[in-house]
């Protein structure tokens, strides 16, 4: 178990935010951790929709991480940037 600072690129938010996550967290929990810092603060909620997380890439085409996958299994580095988006 370790803390990791990741960059949250939350859809619709103006700012890229630093969010601390735990390596034991699932990506569903990562999505919730990022949501806390954007939805209801700088981004409106989208009730009924699900949040997904993927690596940020130049063309926004990365496959999303499975919701149950653990952070420790994703080979993330300090300050890697993640897209968090509604589907």
């Amino acid at each position, binding site marked *: 178990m370790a803390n990791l600072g990741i960059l949250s690129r939350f859809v619709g938010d103006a*700012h*890229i*935010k*630093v969010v601390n996550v735990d390596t034991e967290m699932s990506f569903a929990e990562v999505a919730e951790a990022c949501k*806390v810092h954007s939805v*209801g603060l*700088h*981004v409106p909620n989208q009730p009924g929709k699900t949040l997904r997380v993927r690596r940020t890439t130049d063309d926004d085409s990365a496959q999303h991480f499975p919701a149950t996958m653990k952070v420790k299994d994703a080979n993330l580095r300090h300050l890697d*940037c993640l897209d968090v988006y509604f589907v």
Partner: protein
Amino acid sequence: MALLDRSEWYGLARETNWTPRYVAENELFPADLSDPYGLPMKAWEAFDEPYKVSYREYVKVQREKDANAYSVKAALSRSKFYDSADEGYLSLLKLHYGAVSLTEYQACQAQGRMSRFSKAPGMRNTSTFGMMDEMRHTQLQLFFPHELVTRDRQFDWAHEATHTKNWAVLGGRHCMDDIMMTRDAITTSIMLSFAFETGLTNLQMVGLAADSEAIGDFTFSNMITSIQSDEARHAQLGTPSIEILIKNGKKAEAQKALDISFWRVWRLFAILTGIPMDYYIPLEKRHMSFKEFMHEWVIKQFVRQLNDIGLEKPWYWDMFLDDIENHHHCQQGGIWSWRPTVWWNPPGAVGPKEREWLEKKYPGWNDSYGRYWDVIIGNLLDGHEEKTHPNCIPVICNMCQIPVSNRPGPKWKARVYQLDYKEKRYNFCTPVCKWIFEQEPERYKDFETIVDRMYSGVIDPPTLPNVLTYMGIGVVSNGGRDGYDYSWINGYRKQAAE
């Protein structure tokens, strides 16, 4: 004895190059401080600046300017203006003084380097006057706000800001250290005098003086006008340098110096000028938007100057034009949201009428930045002020030291541009800031942003109160709050009631 006419001696008095006998020329003028471009001494002797002034004339004129400025300052202590001044306007003043006062002192040192190390006698002469100009500007901009410290401690940032590690100050210092404190005489003349002073600030001061006069602050207006009249002279130092470099086959080098410095200064300038023009100045006092100002006063004139001198527009010109419509709006949102981290009281100032104005000046504002503010306004209307304070931090650009931000809402464009260099991760707000880093990574690689410091152990523990103290908040003065105590949302309450 009758004095000679100036034209009879002035040219001769500026030809002060000599052949050193006790040291080699490269010891007298080391390349890294004087001329890394390797031009012969003769080439620099062609340097000819348009504003010619003798020391006698300089002292006479400056004395008159000072007498005028200080007489207005004397009236300030009796004035009631600041007791009832608009809080948004006071924020403009606090931001200005904190960002500018001791930067002028840095500029004094930069002018000093040009006056000592330039191989061009004309530059040495003019920058000597420039050095005295900048010292005068420092003194004026420390003395004037000092009068206001007893009324509001946040004005103490005029003197203290540069000595703190506030994130906004780090941004200013990183840029100024880069363009004017650590460059050779010639590059400094391009970066400071041409890109910064000629390109952006000289004309901005004209607009700022007009704005403060319209608001009724004749003290500030008078001071800025006094300063601007000096800037107009010593800002001319860069043009002859560029002309000489181009003539001697160094156009690419001059262009690169311009491209780096113009962007670096622009990123700060938009915050220092754009936010106050479009958000802090009361709506009824705004005479033009920041975008209109940039197109009318900066772009038109600057492009003409580039054409005249033989340089091209910076390679990122399209991105710059887009940034004029975006950067300061994003940072207004960010600075307001993280208001406890700054030394002024940023007003949200996006009531219904202000939004109408913003939409007119920046078509599409409501559908982007407006969506961001809608969430904030909703929280305030629901009585949840606490939900307007983020519990995290934005990532900071490793070049401009400004939060990485871009358009919110459906037109969402936020993106970080990353680079791994020597096993370290660097984050940039734009391709341009990343490009600047890539030009000379060894120059920039060791500087840590506030975010880097939170993870490297410099700020330990990296808790919010500790971070604020590290940045001087609660030390020099309290941090910021909403400048209007949220009164700007009353318009929405009224709309809801109707």
